[in-house]
């Protein structure tokens, strides 16, 4: 059940890819690749939706990528009220796949779609229990 440490709020403590959270805690960003058809997945998946194989392997990601889009949330849902306004970005990863994360310490005016950013693993220190995420930095 280690996946429950992933995210400020976590809705899915159980998953076949729970090793992702263990790796993130050790400062590594991991995706998966299907050994049968070589389709790559970020976020990681345990089952390949292309060839239906469940024979997958883990691969490490650099976290580098280009900003695909972003927004700044002013009206927050439950669990995020204390953070508003917060900026969310979607990153097209260099090694394939995408991720969505908070933009860390870059003013919204400086964000440009297409700019290079890096997803970096982070332990949320302001929360008492162990919580790990990744954030987007320059």
């Amino acid at each position, binding site marked *: 059940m280690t996946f429950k440490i*992933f*995210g*400020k*709020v*976590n*809705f*899915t403590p159980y*998953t076949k890819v729970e090793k992702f959270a263990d790796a993130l805690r050790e400062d590594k960003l991991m995706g998966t690749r299907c050994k049968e058809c070589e389709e790559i997945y*970020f*976020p990681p998946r345990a089952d390949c939706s292309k060839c239906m194989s469940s024979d997958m392997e883990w691969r490490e990601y650099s976290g580098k990528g280009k900003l*695909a*889009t*972003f*927004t*700044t*949330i*002013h*009206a*927050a*849902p*439950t*669990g*995020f009220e204390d*953070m508003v306004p*917060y900026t*969310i970005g*979607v990153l097209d990863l260099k090694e394939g*796949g*995408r*991720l*969505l*994360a*908070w933009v860390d310490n870059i003013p*919204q005016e400086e964000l440009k*779609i*297409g700019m290079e950013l890096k997803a970096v693993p982070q332990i949320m220190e302001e929360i008492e229990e162990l919580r790990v*995420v990744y954030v987007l930095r320059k």
Partner: protein
Amino acid sequence: MKVGIVGIGHGRFGRRDDVTVQELAFEPFKEALEDAEIQKREIDATVIGSSPEYHKQRSISGVIAEYLGMNPQPTWLTEAACASGSAAIRTAFGMIKGGIHDVVAVLGVQKMLELSTPEILALMGRVGDVQWESIFGTTFPGYYAMYANRHMHDYGTKPEHLSMVAVKNHEYGALNPKALFQKAITLEKAMKSEMVAYPLRLYDCCANADGAACLILANEEKTKKITDTPVWISASATASAPMSILRRETLTSLPSAVEASRQAYKMAGVEPTDIDVADVHDCFTIAEIMAYEDLGFAEKGKGGKYIEEGQSKIGGKVPVNVDGGLKSKGHPVGATGVSMAVEMVKQLRGEAGKRQINGAEIGLTHNVGGIGQYCFVHIFGR
């Protein structure tokens, strides 16, 4: 075998603190029976379109069918988030086409405002993929804001274009006595409203509402017996797309809408230029601009120009959301798709009053579920 619409009903949308969900459903159902001039025993089944997570009452189809006096005929629920109403229409359409039922009542019904604000905020936090996206506090406006930013970047769409959609839909909503907001707004007011999710402001977002709408569908033979002014469903099409925006091939279009409309045009044997009037899913202003393009009314990337030129206004190429759209009517999730169809029937019958498109022959509805994981496109003809 054709499927016709023989009766329509539409309740008042808004904050309905005065009714339960079954009482809300009763209003348009009774109106549709009177419109069709049939007895309820002539109806073979009741299909309810609704999103169940908003209701305190569980299993609402059972409660509604009982309240309408529609036992022992079959009833069930269809769910496709904000497109639940259109999912109900398609289900009824298929049942009739397949010869299982002759006459089916479709009820789109939703009470959204019986939940407390904290309950709504908790639901709002789970609209995306909860494993990889909701953990960062994504919201409905947030997703459409991300589409908007990318659309602006790729095609030069401007905040003014978004606000023009809001101004148009409020202008027409003022002509619709069933709408939540019946008041025109200025461009300045829209552009200065508070920020919800950059670049979307308050007036770029539709409002939650309670509401219900009803259609009575019948097979070709029964339709001709029941009414002299039938409206026919000439296409019922739908498609899906990845729920997660991390697995979408594009962020400026809804692939489900492109595919559903392609199927719908083929099924009806018409082109986008043949459409006389349309209701599209303007949950956010950018959604209407994307719809112009996804439905082929405007070229890809030219949605902003389309609203700027007034092509989606009465007198333009394809008047869109002349009933006020979700923006003005309010968006009672399950009722919305049925409400759109009711408007098309009114337009094609020539009963739309001040917002009538003269001589409208072909109407189209575009109803999106969630952030685009489902889209239903229906085409109607006389």
